[in-house]
């Protein structure tokens, strides 16, 4: 392996580690804070078999987010692919995506005046990795949608 190649690899790895950790910490801080603020409005996944609540208004709300991996996570995950076992580095990625998408939906619904959100559904889709070859989740899109009721 050329020295230059190793240097670039190490540089990207270190850059990915520090920036990825920084973004993740910041994101989690914001997620926890917003979740605490919006905790009083319930979100439920039921709504079909239950009798409909008394309400005046109902509206669809969608929240979505695309979260990207960093180089460090990607390399860790590819190595993990060879070893096997739980891909711990990606867990936080998807966790952040789901919570962020739910929060965005909820905040929009609350701004509208919702007192609860029913029949919430979540969807996750992988968006291709680098240079188009779908070798790993370059990033994940999570969408959350449900019906706000007031």
């Amino acid at each position, binding site marked *: 392996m050329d020295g230059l190649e190793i240097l670039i690899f190490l540089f990207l790895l270190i850059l990915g580690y520090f*920036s990825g950790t920084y973004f993740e910490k910041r994101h989690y801080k914001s997620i926890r804070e917003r979740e605490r603020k919006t905790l009083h409005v319930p979100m439920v996944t039921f709504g079909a078999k239950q009798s*409909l*609540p008394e309400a*005046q*208004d109902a509206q669809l709300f969608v929240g979505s987010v695309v979260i990207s991996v960093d180089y460090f996570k990607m390399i860790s995950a590819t190595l993990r692919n060879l070893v096997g076992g739980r891909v711990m580095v990606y867990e936080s990625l998807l966790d952040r995506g789901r919570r962020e998408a739910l929060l965005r939906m909820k905040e929009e619904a609350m701004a509208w005046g919702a007192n609860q959100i029913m029949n919430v559904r979540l969807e996750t889709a992988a968006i291709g990795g680098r240079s188009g070859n779908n070798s790993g989740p370059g990033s994940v899109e999570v969408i959350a949608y449900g*019906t706000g009721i007031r």
Partner: protein
Amino acid sequence: MILTTLEGVPGKTIVEHYGLAQGSTIRAKHIGKDIMASLKNLVGGELKAYTELLQESRQEAVERMVQQAEELGANAVVNIRFATSSVAQGAAELFAYGTAVKVE
């Protein structure tokens, strides 16, 4: 037009249904945004450009579904679901579907 993910509309009753209403869009990748995204892939974090791109596309799918429902004579779409599928390399289909109904 009332849109819900529930089986009905709270406070109203369904009087008639018109079957399925659906809308979809297929989005190809955006080269400019892709370059930015591949850079962001190194450092991590949210890809805001992609979030917006997909949001717009999904909005378009919803609008098409609403348009279908209107043509059918409905004033609400209930039990809406979204789905994403990649149809070709670099292209994604976003679709929304639900049941068109008339509520009173």
